[in-house]
């Protein structure tokens, strides 16, 4: 589904990603872990199409297409979803209008008619139940005045509405208490299918108690220095990133 080959990314002459290689198949959950500043969020942003970065080398192939040539909205319509680490507040744009526009753009892309209002409301109700989001959030402006937890849950709700093929969740667990964390993880697990894939980016192992990854990768100084199964996350939690630092330097 997704192949990242030798990806080099810089911002203002500072090299951030220094040769990432990653292969994600459908039906899989991948976790990317790593200390602050290792390039995790940059990777997520580059996948979603943020144009703040220079791609100096490498390629990303998604469903056989060159992802780097696609605008962010095209990527979204092709099934890529980024759960933001810091969801943006957009006063004056109602959640309803925002979601309706997004869903209908996606439908247009698939050659479908815009959704009828009644069907749309029904779908919203179902998805709200699925991810256990507070129902009055959708009556407000996008993320405006939402608490940290509400913002993250809102990301998962949007993910449910858009039904993506590849979700990238950027530190969705940061700033969440354990109850909110469970709700978010629960949502992700419910949305998982054999047809889609998820990349979970996290600093801590605790989210992985609730979302069981098929593969765990450790990103360190712009490179994936270690990959393994879910046990790698536990090992990391025990030994800390210092362990890897030493191992990498020794290597």
């Amino acid at each position: 589904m997704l192949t990242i080959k030798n990806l080099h990314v810089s911002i203002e002459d500072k090299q951030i990603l220094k040769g990432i290689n990653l292969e994600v198949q459908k039906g899989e959950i991948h976790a990317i872990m790593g200390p602050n500043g290792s390039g995790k969020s940059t990777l997520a942003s580059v996948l979603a199409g943020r144009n703040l970065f220079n791609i100096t080398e490498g390629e990303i192939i998604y469903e056989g297409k060159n992802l780097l040539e696609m605008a962010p909205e095209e990527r979204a319509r092709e099934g890529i979803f980024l759960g933001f680490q810091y969801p943006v507040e957009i006063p004056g744009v109602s959640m309803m209008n925002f979601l309706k526009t997004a869903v209908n753009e996606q439908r247009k892309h698939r050659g479908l008619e815009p959704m009828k209002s009644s069907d749309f409301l029904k779908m919203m109700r179902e998805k709200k139940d699925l991810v256990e989001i507070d129902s009055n959030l959708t009556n407000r402006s996008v993320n405006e005045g939402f608490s940290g937890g509400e913002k993250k849950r809102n990301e998962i709700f949007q993910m449910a509405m858009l039904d993506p093929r590849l979700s990238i969740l950027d530190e969705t667990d940061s700033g969440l208490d354990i109850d909110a964390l469970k709700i978010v993880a629960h949502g992700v697990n419910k949305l998982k299918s054999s047809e889609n894939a998820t990349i979970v980016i996290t600093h801590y192992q605790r989210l992985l108690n609730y979302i069981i990854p098929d593969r765990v990768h450790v990103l360190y100084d712009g490179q994936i220095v270690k990959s393994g199964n879910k046990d790698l996350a536990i090992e990391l939690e025990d030994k800390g990133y210092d362990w890897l630092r030493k191992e990498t330097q020794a290597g």
Partner: protein
Amino acid sequence: MSIHAQSIDLKDRFAAFFYKHQSTIREGLPEGINQHRQVAIEAFQQNGIPDRNVEDYKYTDLNPAFEKDYRTYIRPKQIDFNLNDIFHCDVPALDTHVVLLLNGWFYEKKTPQKKLPNGVIITSLREAANEYPEVIQKHYNQYADSKNQGLTALNTAFAQDGVFIYVPRGKAMDKPVQIINLLMDEEPGMSQHRNLMVMEEGSQAKVIVCDHTLSQSTFLTNSVTEIYAGQNAHMDFVRIQNEHNDSTQISNLYLNQERDSNVTSNTISLHGGLIRNNYYLRLNGENCENKTLGLYLTDRGQHIDSYVHMDHAHPHSRSNQLFKGVLDDYATGAFNGRILVRQDAQKTEAYQANNNILLTDDAKMNSKPQLEIYADDVKCSHGGTSGQLNGDALFYLRSRGIPLKEAQLLLMYAFAHEIIGEIHIQPLQDRIHELTEKRLRGELTRCNYCQMHCGDSGKN
């Protein structure tokens, strides 16, 4: 009847025209109005048409607009047109008392009922001057500054007609009054109409003003509106400016608020060549509430300049100015807002903000907020921003599959909503939302036809 472009100074030209035609100008009007002319024309000769050397007009030079050759309508020009061909109400459920000004003159045929059963009067300034001399005597030219403001003085010297609204004590208007200013002629025209609105103690009214050009010729408007809001009076004043690129519109609004009164004014400038909106607001009593809001959407070579002078003369009043604009292409704009808090005006709350979105590198906005405070126990703030659409917000929307153009529109629309949401006449608010969206989509680039289509209740 036209003032021909000559090499002599503009102000002398207007003065000469005044002296030559003053008997026609004075004809049919009582002293209540005519008594102000001589002083006004002299004040105009003193002050002239402001140019960029005048601090408050630093960003807008009006002289070129005045130098053109216009017909001035010192007598109403008979223009044959079938009003019903032009207007069909396009605002569902907008039920209003419609009054029409054609090139600044009250259009009698459109106003069947001038006095409502509850004593509310909606008529022409001419008629009011003769029928209600005591009201004219008490209020006419009492709030407008015909001494120091050249343009206001010019209007006072020439004004012959306009709209007069009177709401008696304790009465509420059953529905909004809608004043439609139409400019229509095959040759360039200049209108200097004069409106007077008197709201007695405890009265309530909503007034909508729509400005339209209906033909392609060059137009210049220099209008003055005086509003007196008596003690505990409530008023909503909404103005929609929609004129073509060859028009210059100067509107001078003078509002005097007595204690406990509450006035919201909302100016939506959808289109216009050059617009200068002056707001002179005086909170002349305790516990007044004022909101002065403006939204302007400009593109190409359009220019809009808003000037606000908010005078807090007494304690415990609150005022809030918010002006927002979206400037596209090489459009230019200016905002100059001044809050004056006098020494006695303790516990004043006065806020002012001017926010702009510049869609191109060539669009330009000059924003100059000013505070002048002589009281020591007040809450005041002012600020201005000019910038592009928020890049983070744009990316967020696009990352959900919304195309760039649509995402930009959503953000601009949201930006405008803060002002439009304050229009307290729901069908009008809905319609303005629609027009704003169309305007932002670039679907309303031409404007010689009325976009409101609401002068007639054809469909209702």
